[in-house]
């Protein structure tokens, strides 16, 4: 078993284990301890060997020479100072030395500038991701809340007419606004309904006796294929598609089973898109750089009324890049979306493109 490379280098370079970390390591590492013992033994032999009589005055000359060098350096520094301030102008070669120095410095400066410009023009050393933001159509109705529950269990009707309104986003993209037929819930007010409806839970009910204005079986989005209401009754689910959170179900008519209400909260429509006030591109993650990972991260974001960004979900991920994109997105600040002059929340998709060689 060999000694640890770092400790080995230190021991061989300095010939001791005086450094704290080396001392502590050697005390706990057997191979390093063995190496340290041998190094110290060699060092002892070297020191013993060189204590042999050296040439007469060798050490003294060495020390004197070092002292002389130190003092001469100090003297040179003292003498150099007046030159810098334009004194001793009679010194021979001063102006030529200055000219050479000036030329060299200017050349270095020019080379540095040229290199920096070349770096700017060429491919960047560290690519930075590009940002693209897309909000959903302003002015369009936003997807509404979830639909309401179906009807309650009741006597089996002769002609079941399940009517459910679905406000889910399935099949129309994650957030595509969907035209929702306005359900005139107000028209369903109890005064126009037979009294049997009001006592729905208590008495048997005959659907033929009900004439519901504004409701028919050909309502778009009628019976949902995946509805769990396998019943034979009729249920009417009503959802509010104008930014109300969970739908409130109102069941009318007999039937078995019920629909499921509720859905994700969606903000309503807005007239003017949010405007980005402050935001920086995320740094290209080192792991992605090392593995040369390119691609897009799609984030669904909500711009709140106060201008802050909230990442709702990750629509498209990229290894090692999601965290950087999310972190950058949450730092964005916006001028919120406006509807009728008032700030409202808005939802959009933030696309962060990670490219090693950005397209120009």
């Amino acid at each position, binding site marked *: 078993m060999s000694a640890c490379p770092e400790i080995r280098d230190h021991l061989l370079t300095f*010939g001791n284990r005086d450094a704290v970390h080396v001392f502590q390591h050697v005390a706990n590492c057997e191979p390093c301890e063995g190496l340290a013992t041998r190094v110290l033994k060699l060092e002892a032999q070297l*020191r013993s060997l060189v*204590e042999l009589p050296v040439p007469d005055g060798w050490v003294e000359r*060495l020390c004197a*020479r*070092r002292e002389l060098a130190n003092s001469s350096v100090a003297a040179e520094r003292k003498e150099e100072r007046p030159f810098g301030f334009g004194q001793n102008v009679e010194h021979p070669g001063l102006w030529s030395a200055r000219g050479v120095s000036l030329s060299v410095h200017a050349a270095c400066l020019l080379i540095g500038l040229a290199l920096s410009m070349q770096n700017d023009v060429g491919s960047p050393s560290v690519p930075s991701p590009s940002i693209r933001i897309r909000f959903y159509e302003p002015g369009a109705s936003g997807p509404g809340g979830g639909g309401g529950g179906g009807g309650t269990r009741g006597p089996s009707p002769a002609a079941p007419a399940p009517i459910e309104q679905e406000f889910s986003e399935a099949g129309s993209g994650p957030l595509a606004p969907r035209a929702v037929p306005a359900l005139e819930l107000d028209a369903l007010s109890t005064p126009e309904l037979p009294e049997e409806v009001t006592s729905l839970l208590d008495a048997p009910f005959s659907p033929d006796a009900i004439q519901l204005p504004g409701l028919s079986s050909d309502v778009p989005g009628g019976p949902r294929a995946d509805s769990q209401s396998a019943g034979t009754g009729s249920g009417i689910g009503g959802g509010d598609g104008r930014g109300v959170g969970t739908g409130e179900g109102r069941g009318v008519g007999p039937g078995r089973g019920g629909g499921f209400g509720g859905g994700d909260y969606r903000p309503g429509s807005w007239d003017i898109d949010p405007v980005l006030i402050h935001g920086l591109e995320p740094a290209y993650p080192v792991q992605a750089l090392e593995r040369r990972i390119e691609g897009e991260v799609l984030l669904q974001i909500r711009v709140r009324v106060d201008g802050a960004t909230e990442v709702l979900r990750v629509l498209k991920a990229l290894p090692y890049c999601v965290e950087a994109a999310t972190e950058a997105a949450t730092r964005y600040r916006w001028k919120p979306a406006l509807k009728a002059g008032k700030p409202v929340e808005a939802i959009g998709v933030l696309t962060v493109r990670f490219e090693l060689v950005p397209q120009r």
Partner: protein
Amino acid sequence: MFTIVVNTVRSYFRQRQRRGFVRDAQVERLASPDPSAESQVEAQQTLERLEREICELPSTHREALLLAVVQNLSMHEIAEVLEVPVGTVKTWLRRARARLMKRLKEHL
């Protein structure tokens, strides 16, 4: 700057290489507390071998080693004397000691 010093070191090693002497004092210092004849002979052999190996080191390595061990100069001072970067001095010292340890494996 330290041309004279470096030349002195070089000449010192040249002389040592020619003479190849080991004094009894060093043998006694390296020998075990029991000054038996056998241990003295062994210590003398070790020193002779060590001296030979030092003389076979590259001159740069030798100079750096001598300045570090004899003069107790710091890395920076050695670098200044030999007019090389500090990293070079460290490399020379590390290689010099590594080579000596490898050659003198049986004596360490």
